[in-house]
């Protein structure tokens, strides 16, 4: 209600205040980009100096470590040969995760082979494993600390927030400057995104260990270290494995971005295929989804099966398990040596040769042809579907995007600044309002006010669409378990499919430069909104629902008057999370013509306009924090 009033006032301000009130030059720090350019030059000189100082020596050491790890893992996968790799993956999952997960793992490996993307898949697997190992090496100790010390937890939370809010696209530049291009840079970008969930979930797990168990351990005279290693960590094992699972999922979602800065593998195929062969980019995107699904199922199955709180093994059971493990490793080794002895290739071959004929071993070319046919169809401006999508794109542009952009960019800056701060105050309280004010001011001072407002208009339109559809579908899924079951694989796919992949068809279908980015960000954000809304509506106390029915309310009335209002907090959380996710993708839209901040970063990265690129990165961070605070609501800030 109050929010509506503020928006109305902002509209009035836009209409009534005459003249040019764009962000004043006197309030802009104009030398900033040039200063940043100098800083870049300095950093490069330091990094490449013959005897770097301590700080750069550490950076360089880390870079060497990451490079070495990726190379070593890749070499190992190649040494195993493709037969050995399939055997190792499948048997390990079979031993620790059960036959269902093992079957999925096996099928995933087979699909990489058949798709003709074996080598790229292995490179991605190696890159990911390195990133995940290093993320866990940092994340778990920090998570344990955060789980044991409330103060440490409070200090580290805002840092973790920032790491997750900033779109990966924004920190590519600084990472390239500090670590050059290559696997190490890709690993580090991935870690920035994947460490926070590792820390959070570990902390949650440690704190979840009941006080009784810890007390009991102390009472028996355990030292702090003993309590940690013998009680807290084993009991939190399920959460730890869950954090491995989440770290992997987050890491995979960055594989494509990593392709932009010299990470090899599937991500590289996607980013470069965008230029030379869109069908190949889509095929590689599908391989990434398959890898994500297999890794997800395998790690969650392992987490379930090996949970010590669920399995109480007798001594005989333990011996049995040990024998099985030994048999698994023996089986893997036997397969690997047999494969090597029989001359299996390190990567799955494109064709098999017998003495008489050559068989094509993959359906790579067929798949590419099918995808290309589909792309040719969407590229054809006389096609049926184009007749729907083009006017729809134009409608969104002319009736939603442009008016909102005009309102935000052309309004006097103080009206927008005041309005957003006021909304933050009404919805979230005083402190978030102050943060919002500071962040927006920072954007102005950096001299990118119009660009940031342009980006904000795209974010708001995309979020509005995502939330609208998210609420409708989410409520529907909450009411009907069958709908939820049907949606689940679709939502999983949308969350793991690289955004650049589903941007590709929309470049053709909605040839208006800002729209493909918006569609892609809606698709990326909507699964989370749907899940939060579904959970919220499910979580409405049955007593309230019963009471409403008792008073004779119809099903629709119960939904509209009871369930949705009571689920308000979850829905608000959905809006909040939706905005952050949308922001991450709208920025990637810079690659396909979204303009504004995304374009500045794309240019900064590709044309070495470092200063501008970093300014745009900082502006995105500021905008993300501001929009987060505006929509955060009065929920408990300690909630993850």
């Amino acid at each position, binding site marked *: 209600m109050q929010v509506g009033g503020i928006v109305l006032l902002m509209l009035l301000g836009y209409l009534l205040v005459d003249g040019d009130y764009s962000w004043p030059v006197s309030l802009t720090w104009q030398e900033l980009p040039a200063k940043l350019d100098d800083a870049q030059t300095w950093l490069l000189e330091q990094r490449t100096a013959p005897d770097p100082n301590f700080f750069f020596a550490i950076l360089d050491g880390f870079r060497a470590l990451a490079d070495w790890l990726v190379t070593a893992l890749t070499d190992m996968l190649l040494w195993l040969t493709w037969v050995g790799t399939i055997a190792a993956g499948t048997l390990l999952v079979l031993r620790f995760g059960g036959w269902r997960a093992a079957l999925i793992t096996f099928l995933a490996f087979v699909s990489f082979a058949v798709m003709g993307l074996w080598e790229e898949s292995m490179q991605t697997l190696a890159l990911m494993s390195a990133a995940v190992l290093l993320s866990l090496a940092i994340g778990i100790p920090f998570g344990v600390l955060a789980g044991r010390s409330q103060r440490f937890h409070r200090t580290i939370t805002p840092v973790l927030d920032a790491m997750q809010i900033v779109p990966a696209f924004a920190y590519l530049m600084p990472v*390239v400057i500090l670590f050059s291009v*290559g696997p190490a840079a890709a690993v580090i970008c991935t870690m920035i995104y994947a460490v926070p969930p590792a820390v959070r979930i570990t902390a949650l797990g440690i704190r979840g260990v009941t006080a009784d168990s810890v007390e009991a351990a102390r009472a028996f005279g355990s030292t702090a270290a003993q309590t940690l290693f013998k009680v807290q960590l084993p009991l939190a094992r399920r959460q730890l494995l869950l954090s491995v699972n989440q770290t992997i999922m987050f890491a995979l979602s960055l594989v494509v971005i990593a392709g932009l*800065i010299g990470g090899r593998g599937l991500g590289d195929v996607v980013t470069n295929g965008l*230029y030379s062969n869109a069908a190949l980019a889509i095929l590689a995107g599908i391989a990434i989804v398959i890898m994500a699904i297999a890794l997800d199922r395998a790690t969650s199955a392992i987490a379930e099966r090996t949970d010590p709180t669920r399995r109480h093994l007798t001594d005989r059971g333990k011996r049995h398990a040990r024998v099985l493990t030994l048999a698994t490793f023996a089986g893997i080794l036997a397969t690997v040596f047999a494969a090597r002895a029989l001359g299996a290739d390190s990567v799955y071959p494109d064709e098999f040769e017998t003495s008489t004929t050559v068989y094509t071993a993959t359906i790579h070319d067929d798949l590419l042809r099918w995808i290309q046919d589909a792309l040719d169809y969407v590229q054809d401006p006389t096609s049926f579907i184009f007749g729907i999508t083009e006017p729809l794109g134009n409608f969104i542009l002319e009736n939603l995007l442009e008016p909102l952009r005009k309102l935000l960019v052309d309004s006097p800056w103080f009206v927008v600044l005041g309005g957003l701060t006021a909304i933050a105050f009404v919805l979230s309280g005083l402190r978030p309002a102050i943060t919002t004010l500071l962040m927006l001011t920072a954007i102005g001072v950096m001299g990118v006010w119009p660009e940031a407002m342009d980006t904000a208009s795209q974010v708001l339109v995309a979020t509005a669409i995502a939330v609208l559809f998210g609420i409708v579908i989410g409520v529907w899924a909450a009411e009907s378990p069958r709908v939820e079951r049907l949606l689940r694989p679709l939502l999983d796919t949308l969350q793991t499919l690289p955004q650049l992949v589903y941007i590709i068809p929309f470049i053709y279908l909605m040839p208006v*430069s800002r729209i493909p980015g918006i569609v892609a960000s809606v698709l990326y954000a909507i699964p989370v909104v749907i899940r939060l809304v579904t959970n919220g509506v499910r979580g409405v106390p049955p007593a309230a629902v019963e009471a409403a029915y008792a008073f004779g309310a119809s099903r629709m009335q119960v939904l509209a008057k009871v369930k949705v209002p009571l689920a308000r907090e979850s829905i608000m959380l959905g809006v909040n999370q939706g905005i952050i996710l949308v922001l991450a993708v709208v920025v990637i839209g810079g690659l396909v013509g979204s303009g504004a901040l995304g374009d500045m970063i794309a240019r900064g990265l*590709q044309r070495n306009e470092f200063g501008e690129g970093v300014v745009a990165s900082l502006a995105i961070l500021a905008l993300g924090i501001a929009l987060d605070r505006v929509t955060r609501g009065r929920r408990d800030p300690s909630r993850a």
Partner: protein
Amino acid sequence: MALLVALFAAACGEDKDDQSSGSSENAAAGGKDCGKVVLNEQAWAGSTANTYIAKAVLEDNLGCEVEITKIAEIPVFQAMADGKVDAVLEDWQHVDEYKKYIDGAGTVVQGGPLGVEGHIGWFIPKYLMDENPEFKSWEGLKGKEDLFKTPESGDQGMFLGGDPSYVQKDKELIEALGLNFKHVTAGAEPAQVARWSQLYKQKKPVIFYWYTPQYLNQEYDLAEVQLPPRTDANQDCKDDSKSGGDPEQYKCEYDVTVINKLFSKKFADSKSPAYDMLSKFELTNEDQEQVAKAIAGDKVDPEKAGQDWVEENQDKVDAWLN
């Protein structure tokens, strides 16, 4: 393959090269002489073409192990400086980077012209030029910008800008020429091509940043709008508006771009036979467009497209190897 080796051996034998790298047999068989060469493929099909031609020659004739990286145009300078990339075969005159890495730090060296000449300009479909012959020159666009209106450009005409990573100055040109165009970025080149090719297929008006050599020029009939010519009077006219400033200093057509090969200092000093070959490596616009079309248009595997060209143009290849 065997034929290639034989040919090469013969060619070398006649020449009696005095390099200590040993007999022609040795070089042909590969061995330690060449080792690993890292070439960077740029993001467009033409670059894929020349990179894979070079790869075919390096591998089949000199026995090198070739690795191809795909790093963006500017970051690759740093990669060469760090010795992670040995050569870039198609660089479109990144003058700022030349200053920094070639003249300044000296970590990258010039490798001479590739032989391909680049040309950037404003292009429109041929059918549009036929209907409006006055568009032959930029002055003919004045007052007619409305024709190019799209929902994206509001009440102005739409000028479709080039890939943000390419050399360009169109925003400044539009301003300096006083044209009522809105510069719309379509983003990466494939997205830009999607935009104009759809308008082309619908026979609608469109004006956009484009260049030659480009294999799509064989598929679409395009015509160029003449921008203010370069004369003695505007010698200092610039082509890359990266450094910003007064739009007037960009008010002229794009200069013909001599496309350069660049090598990392380390590679140039290595005395590798691969360096000798790449120094002599030279292609014409036609060579490059032909292979690019095979790769991007007909979807021939780049590896094969490169080898095919080498087989058909053995005389040119021999000249690089002597």
